[in-house]
């Protein structure tokens, strides 16, 4: 398979790299043009359209995925750079029957309106709780400050993350 240009028409002689990326726990071997962005590999190459492209200028955080557990704007990382790394997208966060506490929190606290920022917001929040299981409200706000919600629904997003923290610590069921 070839990504980076139309996967139907493939120009001969274009420099392509074979990379191995673990996406949501599954090892994927793909050939990519060096200029392909990670966001496009995920969305168009691997059909994981949960990763949203918002501003496409590194400002909004909608395209955030986890690279080895760390939030990264996937519109600003080359797919070749993911070679040998583990990527988590929103599709890998939980399953419908077993939601990640952050997903459950977003549902319970009505933390989404249009939903466009939600995947990036949840991945950033998930990473926060991995490194800081008991964040203060201030720490939650700080952690998500690189993810913009154009509906300005921050209040409930913060509540959702705090709910998830409590759930993870066994505080709510």
């Amino acid at each position, binding site marked *: 398979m070839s990504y980076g240009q139309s996967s139907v028409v493939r120009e001969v002689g274009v*420099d392509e*790299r074979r990379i191995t990326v673990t996406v949501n726990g599954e090892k994927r071997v793909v050939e990519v043009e*060096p200029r392909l962005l990670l966001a496009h590999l995920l969305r168009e190459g691997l059909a994981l359209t949960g990763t949203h492209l918002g501003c496409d200028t*590194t400002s909004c*955080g909608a395209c955030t995925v986890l690279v080895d557990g760390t*939030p990264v704007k996937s519109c*600003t990382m080359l797919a070749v*750079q993911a070679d040998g790394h583990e990527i988590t997208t929103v599709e890998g966060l939980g399953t419908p029957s077993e939601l990640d506490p952050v997903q459950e929190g977003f549902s319970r606290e009505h933390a989404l309106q249009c939903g466009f920022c939600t995947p990036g917001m949840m991945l950033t929040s998930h990473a926060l709780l991995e490194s800081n299981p008991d964040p203060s409200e201030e720490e939650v706000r700080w952690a998500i400050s690189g993810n913009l919600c154009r509906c300005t629904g921050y209040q409930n997003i913060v509540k959702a993350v705090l709910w998830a923290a409590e759930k993870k610590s066994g505080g709510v069921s």
Partner: protein
Amino acid sequence: MYPSRFRYEAPRSLDEARALLTRFGDEAKILAGGQSLVPLLKLRFAAPELLVDINNIPGLDHHREDADGTLRIGALCRHVSLERSALLPGRHPLMASAAPLIADPIVRNRGTLVGSLCHSDPQGDWASVLLALGGSIVALGPSGRRTIPASEFSLGPFQNALLPGEIAIEAVVPAAQGHVSGSYLKLERRVGDFATAGVAVALEMSGDTVTRAGIALTGVGPSNIAATAAEQALTGRALTTDTIDEAAELAAAAAQPRSDHRGSAAYKRHVVATFVRRGLQRQEVGAAA
């Protein structure tokens, strides 16, 4: 948005990187955190023939002190490592206060201090920090290694003293003497925005006397500006209302702000004076405590 086509190499050692850079000269661009370069590639403001990705080169992600207190920050030390550093808060207060104010948390996960210096954006915060601390940049190139003082590094917007084929491997901050204090003050319209104006203040004191003052300005000129007259006005004197006011006025005079969407030139100049005053007053309180 797609960048235009480029060749891509991800060398595993500095020697390999150096060989590539020597061969391609100014046709090559180094890719560090990519948080400034990738957006430029996507907008096609930059279209290099070769991208040399240094992220796989081991031994560049450090920030550590030599035995004599010299601080070294490697080319792959990310903003987030400096933000979370256990070393910086006590010993390098200016650096510790600047780190969380760079961009937003996700950009900080990838972006590097050295990359920020090399990008030479006059809105970049780290260049002011390095100027105020009297730091330097270590470059490795076709003809060997050299050290470039921060004061000679930036040559204008997005221009610096690196020669084609040179790679910056480290930023260096000399050891401070006496009682050390400092802070970075930044006015931004929202988290993640570049500075409307920023001020780095670094002081070394012996008793009540300022033995070294570093003051540098962000976002108010074609490069980050060292406010040398303000620094000199403080050196050898105590921090008093008078000396602080004098330094604030001299720093404001050194600024070369332009009116833009972030504010008028007069407003930015006023912010510089206010920030210098605040930065110094903090230290005055700190010294008394």
